[in-house]
């Protein structure tokens, strides 16, 4: 596994990384390198220049303020999984990060690299969409944010522009009475999610006042399921099963391990189980 020749540049700041991006056509940004380097070794990616942003401390860290959590794009999966801030305010994101790869991958891989790669089997995207998170981008002309639901455009395609760097994600903290869960059906070879179901429910006085379900793995991008039928119910198993069965995916992904039909079926089962787990945590 030997990559094609490439130049390596290390950025000392976000500003420098942005100018390196402008100077080098077809350059690729590298954070933890756990998506890009395998692609390069297989020669599926042959960027002439790799810009290493892995040491930019300004893009690392987890904080909470004003009812939302902020996670820097270079924060590792391991740090997210172990974060006290997230455990208190958004545990489902930590739960999903703990499912990624193995300890070595989680120690190197970053949330920014993960979502910028946009693998349909990734654990983070459905959770961000469920949470209504925003993805923040910086370019020489300024900053902007995009809703997670719009960020993931297609298989391995996102809204990140050629001159942009993903700086952080922000998600609303989970309020009182809200429970959320991420359940993963793991591919036995790759460790990616064949199906990953992220669910949340809010319960007040024994009645559901809000619910969400987003399923990864069945389509190129996370698939939101309309579970509004749960609002007003007591979240019985039957009500949950009926709501989760609304999962519908046009053109589901299939491979030698799991066909599209089967993924949709498992998405419904895991959606049901994730909703039930969220209910039990609410």
């Amino acid at each position, binding site marked *: 596994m030997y990559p094609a020749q490439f130049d390596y540049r290390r950025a000392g700041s976000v500003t420098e990384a942005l100018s390196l991006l402008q100077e080098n056509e077809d350059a690729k940004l590298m954070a933890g390198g756990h998506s890009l380097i395998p692609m390069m070794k297989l020669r599926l990616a042959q960027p002439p220049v790799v810009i290493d942003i892995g040491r930019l401390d300004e893009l690392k860290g987890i904080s909470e303020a004003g009812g939302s959590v902020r996670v820097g794009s270079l924060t590792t999966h391991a740090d997210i999984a172990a974060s006290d801030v997230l455990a208190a305010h958004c545990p489902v994101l930590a739960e999903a990060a703990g499912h990624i790869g193995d300890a070595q991958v989680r120690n190197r891989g970053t949330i920014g690299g993960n979502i910028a790669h946009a693998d349909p089997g990734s654990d983070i995207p459905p959770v961000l969409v469920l949470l209504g998170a925003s993805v923040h981008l910086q370019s020489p002309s300024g900053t902007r944010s995009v809703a997670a639901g719009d960020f993931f455009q297609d298989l391995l395609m996102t809204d990140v522009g050629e001159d942009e760097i993903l700086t952080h994600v922000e998600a609303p903290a989970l309020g009182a009475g809200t429970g959320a869960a991420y359940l993963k059906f793991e591919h*036995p070879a790759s460790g990616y999610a064949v199906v990953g179901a992220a669910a949340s429910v809010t319960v007040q006085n024994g009645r559901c006042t809000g619910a969400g379900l987003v399923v990864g793995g069945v389509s190129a991008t996370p698939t939101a399921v309309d579970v509004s039928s749960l609002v007003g119910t007591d979240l019985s198993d039957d009500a949950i099963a009926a709501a989760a069965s609304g999962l519908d995916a046009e053109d589901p992904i299939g491979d030698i391990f799991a066909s599209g039909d089967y993924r949709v079926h498992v998405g419904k089962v895991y959606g049901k189980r994730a909703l039930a787990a969220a209910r039990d945590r609410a």
Partner: protein
Amino acid sequence: MARVLGTSIKRREDPALITGRGKYTDDLKAEGMAHAAIVRSPYAHARIRGIDTSAAEALPGVLAVLTARDVAAAGIPGVVPVGWLLPDLKTPAHPMIAADTVRHVGDAVAVVVAEDRYIARDAADRVAVDYEPLDAVADVVAALEDGAPAVHEEAPGNVAFDWEIGEREPVDAAFASAAHTVELDLRNNRLIPHAIEPRAVLASYDSSTGEMTIHMTSQNPHVHRLLMTLASLGMPEHKVRIVAPEVGGGFGSKIHHYADEAIVGLCSMKLDRPVKWTATRTETNLTDAHGRDHSTRCALALDADGRITGLRVDTAAAMGAYLSTFAPAVPTYLYGTLMSGQYDIPAIHCHVTGVFTHTTPVDAYRGAGRPEATYVVERLMHLAGDATGLGPVEVRRRNFVSPDAFPYQTQVALAYDSGNYGPAMDRALEMIGYDDLRGEQASRRDNGAKQIGIGFSSYIEACGLAPSAVVGSLGAQAGQWESADVRVHPTASVTVYTGSSSHGQGHETTFSQIVADRLGIEPEAVEVIHGDTDLVQFGMGTYGSRSAAVGGSAIAKSVDKIIEKGKKIAAHLLEASAEDLEYEDGSFRVAGSPDRALGLGDVALQAYLAHNYPDDLEPGLSATSFYDPANFTYPFGTHVCVVEVDTETGTIELLRYAAVDDVGNVINPMIVDGQLHGGLAQGIGQALWENAVYDESGQLVSGSLMDYAVPKIHNLIPFELDRTTTPCPHNPLGVKGVGEAGAIASPAAVVNAVVDALSPFGIDHIDMPLTPEKVWRAVNS
């Protein structure tokens, strides 16, 4: 001193390996070393219209680009031979580098040598091969159909061989009068060995002497030297030295002689400098010989009492595009001969068709034929338990070869030397808490989506192919003995030179235990040398769970010769008769006179000084033995697997796995357990996850570890192991072999457990691997 045989002393190999100081082939560097990259066919079947190497040659740092023309110009045999011949076997040539036709994805078409491996890879991408794609057939059944694309003109219908064992008529008669019959169509899934260390070779030719040293990933350096010199490079055998440094796993895949190693040797000869090649993981998956890939129709006949009266097996076994080194033996003499299992079966017939397909060649992989046979027999026994109403335990018990029937002559050539099958079954049932489990299973039957199942596999293994004359009469082009040269130094430390070449088994530890035990010295006083054709006398290597039974016995034989010679020396020094001497705990003693004794060191020193020495004795204290066993050894056991199946998704969870194995006397229990753990991981992997999948055009769809699921530690559970001990009666150590037992027994145990869990759904079979989708579809069909 305390006995060392049968104790779990720690592996002396481990400190270096665990701390990263083990030297593997790819770690080696030679002065002036260049690097090779092999250009491989992206097509399963194509005609080569032309190869343009100019762009590759133009890249700075490229030293040479060789194609089949250069092989021809070198005037060498240039082929990769097959080492086991069957009657009427079709043996189309397997050229080192494809000349005009490629026959599987990964077939070598050219090689680039460059100053570094990055340039070599870049240049390989610049070799322009003009292919005319042809129709291909990758499936073993489709390859036998009329009009299937032909892999070789010399093999009409893609049939490599047509082989049978046992007699057809008595089997037909048994079925005609049977009270119960069960039958099954099954696939035994194709597997990729996946040694962690990829194959690698460093060939260093020296034109001034005409000698070549080849460091390579080998399970059997002498066999590799023989095949490399005789069939591929056409060099005199004594001019080639093959060294296997640390070898990181093989599972059979490093037995075989491949084109790649020969190609690198040729590159070194052409350039007169060292050349290294290490397979990438992609190349490993495309070129390491695969395992299994059978399609089988089988049936069992039983009488009204549930006693087996006949077994019929018809198998199509994929050979792949070429016949790999021992490929023809695997689905024949290592498969059909195992069909009696642990059972007294009066009539057996097994017919096997060897089939060429446009795929990577298939050859021995951990178990090699025996897992496939066990899977056939033990799946049928599960069905027989249902059909007779006896259940899986009683139907097996009722048919076990009786302990007083040994030696037992099967209807398929093998004669089992020893066995006692009931106690292993009893112990397994006790360990697993069988009755309680059945109770829990019953309580869940009408209640919930998660069903549990219990599966059995009572297996027989045949280890250490032997004796050589018999194996030769069956077509082997190699002997099946093993050698050992044991040298006691003047200071009474010992060096053992063994032909059994380790690739992770712990030979250095266990062989030192054998010598230490027999000589009554510390294991630390024994060094074990293996894996170098210049250091070690000819040896056959490590495969088929033969190292302890054959290699260890050769060592024991040499030690015994040394003791006999030592007695003569000691008798001379003690002025006694050699017949009156005993050897115990490292001392030669005159029987009945405990004060008249000499230590091994005193005798060894005198053997080398030869100052005060018997007239009729040569100096020195060493002995070489070539041990040719009288028979195979026959390990056996019963494994029980308990699973929970989520019928809503089809996912399977392993709950328990109990294995009771009888591998004869045990040299090092920890190493035996480790071998079982590894074999179980691979066998359970075959049952649940592993699958080499080709699409219709012959592309290997599961060609990477993103798609091919090798079991990981978190997929498995702690195994519950125990043993019974029935020593092998015909070798000096009473040992049998354990390297493959786990992989042989476990696929059937797992599948039987899943089928047992799903019996309320009317499911009696699902082909491996039991992926969740397959299980879910079976439940919902």
